[in-house]
């Protein structure tokens, strides 16, 4: 755990203020959200849960797809691989940096909701749990995609965006799942953002499509799937 923390701190120092991370982690979700939310006849305060969800998605999964290809290029990733640390510690450490970044960034829309729009939070513990699980889920997703053996940040981001962008449309962020066609509702079930967003909605409104317990269980399952797959891919691509 101490090694994972050391790796996370290293990423924080080097990558948190990198321009491409700020753009893809903060500005991109914000402007994407504004592009689709503005013009709708809904009170701004009701948009906060969706904004938190996609901020968590983009910011959590933006660190590793930048840091790991860069480190491959400058050969410092080899140093991590040759150090006496487990692959699990390496993957966890990389995910941890994305997780912490995402939680910090997601506090911005949260604060905006509370301070500017007086958006009420009905279940604060549910909000904390949902943000933590959603952040960790997408941080692990970012680490998973960064396993692709390339030194080119753009390559990883392109592949990752083919997954991230559709997720924001099929997970109930802009269109409620209940309002989607049947096929859309079925597809929504395989998106981790569906459950993260659902639980954040519950925290703000007291209402949700699924029970909070189901949301938690599914998010944990996704985290485990991403973590195990990431461990396997890092081992396979770095043998």
């Amino acid at each position, binding site marked *: 755990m*101490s*090694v994972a923390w*050391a790796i996370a*701190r*290293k990423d924080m120092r080097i990558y948190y203020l990198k321009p491409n991370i700020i753009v893809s982690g903060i500005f991109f979700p914000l402007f994407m959200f504004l592009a689709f939310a503005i013009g709708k006849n809904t009170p701004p305060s009701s948009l906060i849960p969706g904004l938190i969800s996609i901020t968590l998605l983009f910011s959590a999964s933006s660190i590793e797809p930048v840091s790991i290809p860069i480190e491959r290029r400058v050969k410092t990733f080899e*140093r*991590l691989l040759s*150090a*006496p*640390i487990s692959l699990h510690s390496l993957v966890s450490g990389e995910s941890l940096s994305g997780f912490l970044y995402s939680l910090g960034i997601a506090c911005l829309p949260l604060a905006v909701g509370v301070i500017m729009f007086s958006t009420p939070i009905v279940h604060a513990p549910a909000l904390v749990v949902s943000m933590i699980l959603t952040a960790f889920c997408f941080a692990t997703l970012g680490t998973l995609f960064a396993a692709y053996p390339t030194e080119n940040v753009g390559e990883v981001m392109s592949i990752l965006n083919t997954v991230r962008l559709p997720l924001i449309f099929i997970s109930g962020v802009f269109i409620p799942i209940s309002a989607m066609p049947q096929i859309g509702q079925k597809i929504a079930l395989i998106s981790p953002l569906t459950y993260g967003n659902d639980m954040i909605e519950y925290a703000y409104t007291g209402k949700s499509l699924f029970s909070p317990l189901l949301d938690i269980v599914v998010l944990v399952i996704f985290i485990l799937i991403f973590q195990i797959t990431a461990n396997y891919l890092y081992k396979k691509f770095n043998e």
Partner: protein
Amino acid sequence: MMFSAELYHVGRKEREKKADELLKKFELYERRNDKAHGFSKGMKRRLTLAMGLVNSPRLLFLDEPTSGLDVQSNLIIRDVVTDLVLEGVTVFLTTHNIEEANIMCDRVAIINKGNIVAIDAPESLKKTIRSVQSIEVSFNHNSADQLDELHRLPMVNDAHKEGDKFKLYTEDPSEVIDAVVAYAHTHNLKVISITTLGPSLEDVFIRLTGLQRAGDGVHAID
């Protein structure tokens, strides 16, 4: 360095103490707060070595540690490696600089086309080719004809120009010294320096790997 130490599970107090010690040893202490991005090649290499030593390894592998570095960095790295060996650390070093292997290593393995062709102490390796002795001479004035003329002196088997010096290979150094002095007198030259040399490790390397000098160049024998 702190990060490297953490990866090797070095405790906090120990890594701070070790980092200070290594930064001073590698003459990087004054730059400890600067970003490594702005370091020269030699400084970066020294820093990399320092990071490799932060966990006090008992066995160290160095792949051409001084290759392409400035003189100061070379000297510092060689001194550090020598000190490590004195402390009982086993150091495996790869180098293309044969003189470096000669002065730094207790044992040398010569590898040719992926195979170890010899492995022994440098002086023991040199003794295997006693016949390769040489005279190294430098005159006050060099000309294009001198190499051929020196090559034609009696008892000279081979001659090469190395910078401002001529290296004459022979089995009878004393005879060649007489011939060189006579040559200098005949051509109104002054002998600046004259040295008798036993076989060098480079000579051993050339003999064992089948390389052959051709004039002033070297070409491989396939």
